[in-house]
């Protein structure tokens, strides 16, 4: 009997555990370790942040779902991994610390035959002074944060209804932040809600970003074939912001926040400020902060994890200039660089390099987006890692029949731009592959026929459809496996 332990119940970890339990549960043990008691469908947090959904609509309890799946669920935080065991046991194990009420702060060693690290990102608010819901800005990264953001936004809208002008600052809150898409959605939804309330004349809306040009979205931008032209996503993104009356500050690395003021440095090395009444700024991401130890209890974290705390996998981590980046640098199987029975899925794996060109100011401040790994690639990676482990358990051979490089995988991003069955809007963007492959596609970096950028109500319907479809799937309801990642 094999034992597979999955760390993290986000999109990638939950997808992995769903497939593992479906194919292994009768003869093997599947364990989920997650500090969260709820699963959340992160893409819909945007709607929580503008008061159009409640947190209960985007989350559900994990325990009953895992009971149904036959998964051994431990509500705990993974503290360290010991792939070689220790002086007491030879088998690899994970040290976990319970957060559930009944076992709070209890430490346990959970042994494994196979380990999937899908711990996701640590929201590194500490990386920018004054950033985050505890201080002066909001976030939509979790349903709690989004709910808090809505409380603050509602207050700002009430002030506007009383004739008071308000400035909204939305974007990235760290010079190396990623996930521009989520912030972009939020600023468009705020603009849509302000317009719906006929308060546009009292609103100043500003998009602040670390992108070199708008529409970069951390993936080096893309090209879209439309209306007889191939245009960069810069045109697409600027056009939407202009249409919604949002001005922008680009090439900006936010370095400090005080009450009502954001301090930033731009790529020209100038230090500037921008005032706000309401701000939602995405923090930088880091690894979950786990440590790794060998059998002699020596810290081997630097061998297992990259400097940002994300796990090193089958990628080419050789430092090289942007011009030498290649599609094959990106991992195929997500197997740990050091241990064959350890994998990292979703945001937990360390990318070999960015997709956006690294830039820095004359003062040496690096200002550019780090690579995003949104729900779709995270789900696909979780699935293929699970499939490979299932294959290995059933055949005894590590063959990695399933592969999913972000340099050959496509992705769709649906950027909500307003809610409503008849008037709702969203920008549907697809790219294939996610990581540009300039050797295979020398002119545009990607398959131009697969790249789409379309705005319309259909996009809103798609986002709503995906909300209900993926929550259905995550709850492991009948025939859930027929829904693709």
């Amino acid at each position, binding site marked *: 009997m094999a034992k597979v332990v999955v760390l993290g119940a986000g999109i990638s970890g939950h997808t992995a555990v769903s497939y593992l339990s479906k194919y292994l549960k009768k003869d093997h043990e599947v364990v989920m370790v997650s500090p969260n008691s709820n699963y959340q469908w992160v893409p819909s947090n945007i709607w929580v942040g503008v008061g159009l959904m409640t947190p209960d609509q985007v989350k559900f309890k994990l325990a009953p779902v895992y009971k149904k799946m036959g998964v051994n669920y431990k509500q705990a935080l993974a503290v360290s991994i010991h792939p070689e065991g220790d002086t007491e046991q030879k088998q690899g194990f994970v040290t976990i610390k319970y957060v559930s009420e009944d076992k709070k702060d209890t430490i346990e060693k959970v042994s494994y035959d196979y380990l999937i690290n899908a711990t996701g990102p640590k929201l590194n608010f500490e990386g920018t002074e004054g950033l985050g819901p505890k201080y002066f800005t909001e976030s939509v990264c979790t349903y709690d944060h989004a709910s808090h953001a809505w409380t603050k936004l509602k207050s700002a809208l009430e002030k506007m209804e009383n004739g008071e002008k308000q400035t909204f600052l939305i974007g990235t809150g760290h010079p190396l932040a990623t996930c521009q898409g989520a912030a972009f959605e939020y600023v468009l939804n705020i603009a849509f809600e302000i317009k719906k309330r006929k308060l546009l004349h009292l609103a100043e809306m500003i998009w602040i970003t670390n992108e070199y040009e708008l529409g970069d979205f951390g993936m080096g931008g893309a090209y879209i074939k439309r209306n007889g032209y191939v245009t960069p996503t810069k045109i697409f993104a600027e056009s939407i912001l202009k*249409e919604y009356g949002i001005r922008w500050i680009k090439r900006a690395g936010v370095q400090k926040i005080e009450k009502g003021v954001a301090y930033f440095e731009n790529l020209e090395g100038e230090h500037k400020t921008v005032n706000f009444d309401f701000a939602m700024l995405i923090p930088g991401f880091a690894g979950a902060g786990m440590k790794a130890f060998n059998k002699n209890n020596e810290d081997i974290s630097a061998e297992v994890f990259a400097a940002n705390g994300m796990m090193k996998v089958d990628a080419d981590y050789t430092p090289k200039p942007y011009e030498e980046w290649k599609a094959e640098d990106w991992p195929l199987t997500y197997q740990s660089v050091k241990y064959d029975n350890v994998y990292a899925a979703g945001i937990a794996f360390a990318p070999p390099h960015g997709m956006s060109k690294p830039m820095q100011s004359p003062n040496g401040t690096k200002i550019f987006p780090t690579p995003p790994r949104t729900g779709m690639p995270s789900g696909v990676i979780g699935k293929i890692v699970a499939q490979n482990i299932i294959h290995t358990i059933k055949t005894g051979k590590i063959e990695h029949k399933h592969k999913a490089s972000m340099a050959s995988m496509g*992705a*769709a991003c649906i950027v909500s731009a307003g809610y409503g069955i*008849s*008037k709702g809007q969203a920008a549907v963007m697809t790219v294939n592959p996610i990581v540009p492959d300039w050797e295979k596609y020398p002119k545009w970096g990607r398959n131009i026929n697969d790249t789409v950028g379309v705005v319309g109500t259909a996009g809103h319907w798609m986002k709503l459809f995906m909300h209900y479809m993926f929550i259905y799937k995550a709850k492991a309801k009948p025939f859930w496996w027929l829904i693709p990642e």
Partner: protein
Amino acid sequence: MKNSIKKTTPYSDMSFATEPTRMVRFMRSFFIFQIYNFFKLNLKVMRIVVGGHS
């Protein structure tokens, strides 16, 4: 959004951005066209997702 015209200052970043015409904005909410787009885009997304991994 109509206010964008008021907010455009010559030689500002925004002044160099494109803006959709009334026809484009109409088509973005035109039910029949959007139904067509809904199925077309879903098909495209499905094809890209399924074809992206082995």
